[in-house]
């Protein structure tokens, strides 16, 4: 069973991401965080196989979250997928530089999300 953490402040966007990932075709467990702070609190509680995060959030932004995860020995190897809105190209590039593995642009295609998430999940299993 794969455990996925979704970090997104928009409830609508969050439930769309959840509904897309529930259909991924492999057993998954999904935990939702409505803000960067919630994600920080959630991380030590679960053994995550994938983190899907937005960039533009009110408390800490997605870049700060990526930076945190990549500098933390316990989470360093969790794949991270950015989903951000078009128009934030520079922020997205920074995210990849900070160590995110992939990104998708909102509005995203659920199938593309599933495909990317699957690849990232399979990568973890391979290691």
């Amino acid at each position: 069973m794969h455990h996925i953490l979704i970090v997104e402040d928009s409830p609508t966007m969050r439930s769309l991401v959840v509904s897309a990932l529930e259909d991924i075709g492999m057993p998954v467990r999904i935990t939702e965080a409505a803000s960067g702070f919630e994600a920080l609190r959630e991380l030590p509680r679960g053994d995550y196989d994938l983190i899907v995060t937005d960039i533009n959030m009110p408390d800490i932004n997605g870049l700060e979250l990526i930076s945190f995860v990549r500098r933390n020995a316990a989470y360093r190897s969790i794949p991270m997928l950015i989903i951000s809105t078009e128009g934030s190209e520079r922020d997205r590039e920074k995210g990849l530089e900070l160590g995110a593995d992939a990104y998708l642009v909102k509005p995203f295609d659920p199938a593309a999300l599933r495909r990317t998430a699957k690849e990232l999940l399979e990568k973890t299993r391979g290691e």
Partner: protein
Amino acid sequence: MSLEAEAGVAEPFAHLARGAARRGEVVTESAPERELLVLWLDESPYALPVERVREIVRLRPITPVPRMPASVCGVLSLRGEIAQVIDLRLRLGLPASSDASPRRRIVVLHGEDGQLTGLLVDRVSEVMRLRDEDLRPPTGRDAGTVIGLAPQGDRFVSVFDVERVLDLGVGA
């Protein structure tokens, strides 16, 4: 009448419905078959998707409501919520039952919009599994309420199109 008394009947279905409705953390495994609840009307079997069933309760006093369509026999209180009850026999144009059989049940459905509706049926028998490709086209003209026939042993079970059953042609 206490709900606990019906635990024997209601529990398995309630469990299925609740399992599916759980939010937050959702566990998903692919399931190639659909599960249908089999119910009986006038000695014929019918079925509807189990995930639409919230619970199954014994027949109990139903409060009639004036100015409702004839197939709505009244309303029922379910743990603080009030739901309309449709007499499924009348809905399908079958003769009304004068039978006070202890096997009569009210199958409580939850709609996509969260609305509860009760269906009064003669009895409920089991949950069957159906693969989509096994569904056969309907033969009757049950006002379009049946979407297909599901084979079970040597007989066919009529599978309801729940939305059509609930569409009484009044107020959207």
